[in-house]
């Protein structure tokens, strides 16, 4: 039952998609049928999986780095009104810059290697993590904050023994939004300067109008995302057993 339903949902969508391609006679060039996509995948399964692993690795490293940077940043923002007022708007502004547009600059500075892709991932991921962590920590019930105050707890204690724990469920919401964005960030990084990864596959197939291949790559992206997402959900269940998720 637990696994049957998602599979059912998937089948429903694939069925609809297939039906649509047949009924509306959609050009395979525009939207290939599921069969075309599977055929495309089966032509190069090993290669595609290899590319998927590369993208996965970029996404996961960037995501990890985003947590490492984002959570302390949120701590700083919650800890100091001045920092919040000064740098929150900048963070918002940074997030509003279309990553596709600055990808070239990132590649020029960080080269064609993995670092430019990881940086793209971080740029995409950091905002949801910071904002959800900060807002979760701010919403700590006042009675608990008073308890810590009454114990004359240090800032560090207040953050690490209270606010961060309280924020965990909300942090996970931010992480879940971020993880799917992470995959996109890696792909955008690969669009600009890479010779491997699913983003590269999509660019190449775009250049040769091989839409089925592009769809196969995107299906792999979707699978990666869903896997990462439910991985996170699992970690959440283990880590936040007191919250009714």
């Amino acid at each position, binding site marked *: 039952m637990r696994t049957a339903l998602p599979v059912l949902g998937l089948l429903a969508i694939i069925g609809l998609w297939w039906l649509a391609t047949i009924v509306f006679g959609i*050009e*395979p*060039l*525009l939207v290939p049928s599921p069969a075309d996509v599977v055929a495309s995948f089966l032509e190069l399964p090993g290669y595609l999986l290899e590319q998927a692993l590369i993208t996965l690795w970029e996404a996961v490293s960037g995501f990890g780095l985003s947590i490492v940077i984002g959570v302390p940043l949120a701590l700083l923002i919650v800890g100091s009104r001045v920092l919040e007022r000064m740098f929150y708007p900048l963070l918002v502004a940074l997030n509003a810059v279309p990553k596709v*547009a600055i*990808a*070239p*600059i990132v*590649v*020029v500075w960080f*080269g*064609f290697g993995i670092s430019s892709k990881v940086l793209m991932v971080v740029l995409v991921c950091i905002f949801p993590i910071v904002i959800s962590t900060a807002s979760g920590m701010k919403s700590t019930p006042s009675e608990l904050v008073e308890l810590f105050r009454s114990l004359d707890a240090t800032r560090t204690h207040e953050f690490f023994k209270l606010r961060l724990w309280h924020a965990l469920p909300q942090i996970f919401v931010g992480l879940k939004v971020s993880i799917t964005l992470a995959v996109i960030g890696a792909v955008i990084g690969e*669009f*600009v*300067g*890479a*010779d491997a990864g699913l983003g*590269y596959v999509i*660019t*190449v197939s*775009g*250049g*040769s*109008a*091989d*839409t089925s291949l592009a769809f196969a790559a995107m299906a792999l992206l979707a699978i990666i995302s869903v896997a990462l997402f439910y991985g996170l959900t699992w970690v959440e269940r283990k880590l936040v057993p007191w919250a009714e998720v």
Partner: protein
Amino acid sequence: AAPAGQKASQKVNYLTSFGTFGRDAYVYVAKEKGFFDEAGLDVTITPGTGSVDVLKLVSAGRADFGVADFTATAITTAKEKMPVTVLAAIQQRSLAAIVALEGNGISKPADLEGKKIGDQPGSTNQVMFPVYAKAAGIDPAKVQFVPSAPPALPQLLAAGQVDGIGQFVVGKPLIEAAAKGKKAVVLPYGDLVPDLYGNALVSSKDFVQNKPELARTFMTALLKGLEYSIEHPDEVGPILKKYQPTQDADVASAEVGLMAPYVKPSDYSGRVGGVTEARVSKIVGTLVEAGAIPAGSLAPTDFVSFGSSPK
């Protein structure tokens, strides 16, 4: 709206090849000079985003006409059986080129060996490189292509991340402007592979079949604009700027000036826009040879409407 007395104007959608640069400005010239009005056409111009996107939009009927790279059109039609057809060749010679900066050790095709060239995967420049290399007598395997997105190319070149980039010949003024004083070295494919067409005016097969008159009328008016442009390049910049304020008029005029010999080469006696079956066959042969398409997958008439092309 059409002036009183004329027959009601017909609405037509048109996609440029990429953006609204000088090389695509002739459509605005045709509009500005009233060529479309005279032909009873009301043309909506939308900036395109590259050959494949244009082909998709045209084959899906979102746009009636578009401009796409001739080679890309051939390859895409061969592989994907896209229902598009070429009406005219905008440039008689390919604009594709490798562009480098002076002082980077590239001044002739032979210098390319052992260098890094940035280009978009699947671009004409990359696909046709083996053919070009063969003509130049160099080993294509010794040139490393670094895949990269088009907007990033000038920056990568200027920053020295790559030694050369795939570009159109007309991009020279832009690159030089970007590289701050450094001169650009341009190695046009057309010098060594003169048979390749540049961009092509495409439409969907349905459209050409159902409205051959309209297709002809539009093509004629557009080519009139093209011809006017290459004859009066200085006028083109200001006209473009009028429609697209972000464009630099001088750069646009310079582009058109550079493009002129490709639209109408000195040794070319045919009409502007003409396509001949002989040359198309040759190109298809070259593509097969370069491994871009399988042998026998494409006949010239599959993707060119010789019947409608300019005579």
